[in-house]
C-alpha cells in the first residue's frame, strides 16, 4: 500500500507492525519522533507492547537488555547524544548476544551543539558488536527495520538500523507499506533458546569472565558477526521473495561499466544516483557503490565490485579526527589493499552537522575523479567537501 510517510513515521509504523513485547526509551531530544509516535500506538491499543519510559538512554538500553534476557522481543530508538549515552550498554547487549533492535537516526554529536544529520553517532558505535544497517530513504528504513528483527534473532546479535537525521527522518516521501498480517508472518514469533523467565531451565548470565574465559566469549562474538553475513543475505532473499524489493550487502548503481565511482552511505546515495544519471546522459561513465551493511563489513565483496573502476571517491559524513581519513574510507581502502586491488582512492569528508550536500558537490567529486583516473592530477587523499576555507 502506497502511503506518504516521514522517515520517523515509516520506522514507527514498522515497529507497530512488528509489535515488539517491550519498548524502553527516553523519547526526548535528541531522539526523533519515532518513539513518540510509537507511544501513541501503545496508548491507542494498536500494539501489545509493554512501553517503558526510562530516565535516560543509558537506562533505556539497560531496560532493553533486561527485557531481552527475560525472553522478550525488544526494540528502541535513539539518536546522537542518546546513542552516545547508551554506549556502555551497547557492549553489554552484544556481549550477552541479545537480539535488540534500535531504530537509530544519524545525527551529529556535541560539541558544538547540533542535532542535524551526520553519521558521527552511529560511527561511534561501529565497534560495539552491533550489526549496522544504513538506509538511503524511508522505504529502505522501513524494509531494513522489518528485516532487522529476523537478522537479530537468527544471528543472536543486536541490530541498529539507521536513517539520516532530518534529510530522511523528517522529510515525507511515498513508501510502499506491507500489510500488518504479512509483516507479522514475516517476523514470526520470537522463540529464544534460553530466557531468564523460563523457570524450568534457570541460568545465570553476565557473570564475571576473567582472563581465562573472556577472550573465548569475544571470539564467539566475532564468529557470530562473521556468520551473520549469510543470515543477512538469507533474510534479504526471503524479503525479496515475499515483497519484491531486493537488498544485499550494498547496492551497485550503474557500476558494472563505470570508470570512476563514488562510495557513500545513506541519503547522499540518492543525490549521487541523480548525478550519475545526469553525467551518464553525457556519456561519462560514472557509478555508485552504496554500502547498506556497515557491520559486518563486506570486505571481500566490496573489493570485488570495485576492482574494475579506475578511481573511487569515498564520501564520509563523519570524521575520525585521526589526522587521516573518515571511517568508511579506511574500511574501503583496507579491503582493497588486502584483496590486492590497486584502485586510486580519495576521501571526502562532507555534510557534518547537517551541512547540505548538493548535486554540484557530487558533480565536483566526479570531475576530480575523472582527472585522477587520467593521471593528470595528484589530489590530496583526504579532502573536506563543502566547508568554508
Amino acid at each position, binding site marked *: 500500500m502506497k502511503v506518504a510517510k516521514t522517515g520517523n513515521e515509516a520506522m514507527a509504523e514498522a515497529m507497530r507492525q512488528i509489535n515488539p513485547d517491550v519498548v524502553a526509551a527516553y523519547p526526548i531530544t535528541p531522539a526523533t519522533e519515532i518513539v513518540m509516535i510509537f507511544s501513541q500506538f501503545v496508548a491507542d491499543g494498536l500494539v501489545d507492547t509493554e512501553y517503558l519510559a526510562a530516565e535516560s538512554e543509558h537506562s533505556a538500553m539497560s531496560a532493553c537488555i533486561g527485557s531481552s534476557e527475560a525472553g522478550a522481543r525488544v526494540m528502541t530508538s535513539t539518536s546522537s547524544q542518546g546513542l552516545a549515552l547508551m554506549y556502555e550498554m551497547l557492549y553489554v547487549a552484544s556481549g550477552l548476544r541479545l537480539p535488540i533492535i534500535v531504530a537509530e537516526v544519524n545525527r551529529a554529536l556535541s560539541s558544538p551543539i547540533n542535532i542535524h544529520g551526520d553519521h558521527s553517532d552511529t560511527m561511534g558505535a561501529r565497534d560495539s558488536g552491533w550489526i549496522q544497517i544504513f538506509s538511503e530513504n524511508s522505504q529502505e528504513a522501513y524494509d531494513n527495520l522489518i528485516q532487522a528483527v529476523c537478522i537479530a534473532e537468527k544471528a543472536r546479535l543486536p541490530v541498529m538500523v539507521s536513517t539520516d537525521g532530518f534529510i530522511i527522518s523528517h522529510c515525507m516521501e511515498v513508501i510502499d507499506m506491507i500489510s500488518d498480517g504479512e509483516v507479522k508472518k514475516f517476523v514470526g514469533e520470537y522463540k529464544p533458546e534460553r530466557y531468564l523467565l523460563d523457570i524450568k531451565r534457570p*541460568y545465570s548470565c553476565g557473570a564475571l569472565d576473567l582472563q581465562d574465559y573472556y577472550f*573465548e*566469549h569475544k571470539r564467539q562474538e566475532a564468529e557470530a558477526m562473521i556468520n551473520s553475513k549469510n543470515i543477512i543475505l538469507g533474510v534479504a532473499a526471503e524479503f525479496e521473495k515475499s515483497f519484491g524489493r531486493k537488498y544485499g550487502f550494498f547496492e551497485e548503481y550503474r557500476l558494472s561499466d563505470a570508470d570512476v565511482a563514488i562510495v557513500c552511505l545513506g541519503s547522499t546515495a540518492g543525490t549521487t544516483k541523480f548525478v550519475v544519471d545526469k553525467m551518464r546522459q553525457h556519456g561519462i561513465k560514472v557509478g555508485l557503490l552504496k554500502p547498506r551493511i556497515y557491520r559486518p563489513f563486506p570486505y571481500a565483496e566490496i573489493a570485488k565490485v570495485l576492482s574494475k573502476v579506475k578511481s573511487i571517491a569515498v564520501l564520509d559524513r563523519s570524521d575520525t579526527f585521526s589526522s587521516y581519513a573518515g571511517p568508511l574510507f579506511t574500511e574501503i581502502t583496507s579491503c582493497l589493499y588486502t584483496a590486492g586491488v590497486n584502485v586510486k582512492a580519495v576521501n571526502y569528508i562532507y555534510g557534518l552537522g547537517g551541512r547540505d550536500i548538493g548535486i554540484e558537490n557530487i558533480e565536483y567529486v566526479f570531475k576530480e575523479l575523472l582527472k585522477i583516473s587520467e593521471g593528470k592530477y595528484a589530489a590530496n587523499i583526504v579532502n573536506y567537501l563543502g566547508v568554508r576555507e
Partner: protein
Amino acid sequence: MEKKLGWKNLPQNDILEAGTAKDFKTGDWRSQRPVHNPEKCISCFICWINCPDSAIIVKDGKVIGIDYDHCKGCGICARECPPKVSAITMEPEKK
C-alpha cells in the same frame, strides 16, 4: 589440571547453569564471624531476609545457625537482629 573449553565448545554468551554460587566457597573471605545464639533467637527471620549470601541456615521453621562456607562476615545479620534479642554477635575470625 582443569580442562578449559575453547570458544567453539563454550556455551555462547557467557551463560552459566543456575546455582553455581553454591559451589564457590566464600567463607575464607571473613575477618569477623557471626555467632548465633539459639537460646536468644526468636526466629523472626530478619537476618535470613537480609543476608546477601543466603548463609542463614533455617530448618523446620527455625534459624539454626550460619553457613560458614559462604558467609563473608559482612555483619548485616548481627546489625539487623532486633536489639532486644541480640542473638547474633560478631567475633574476630581466628586465623
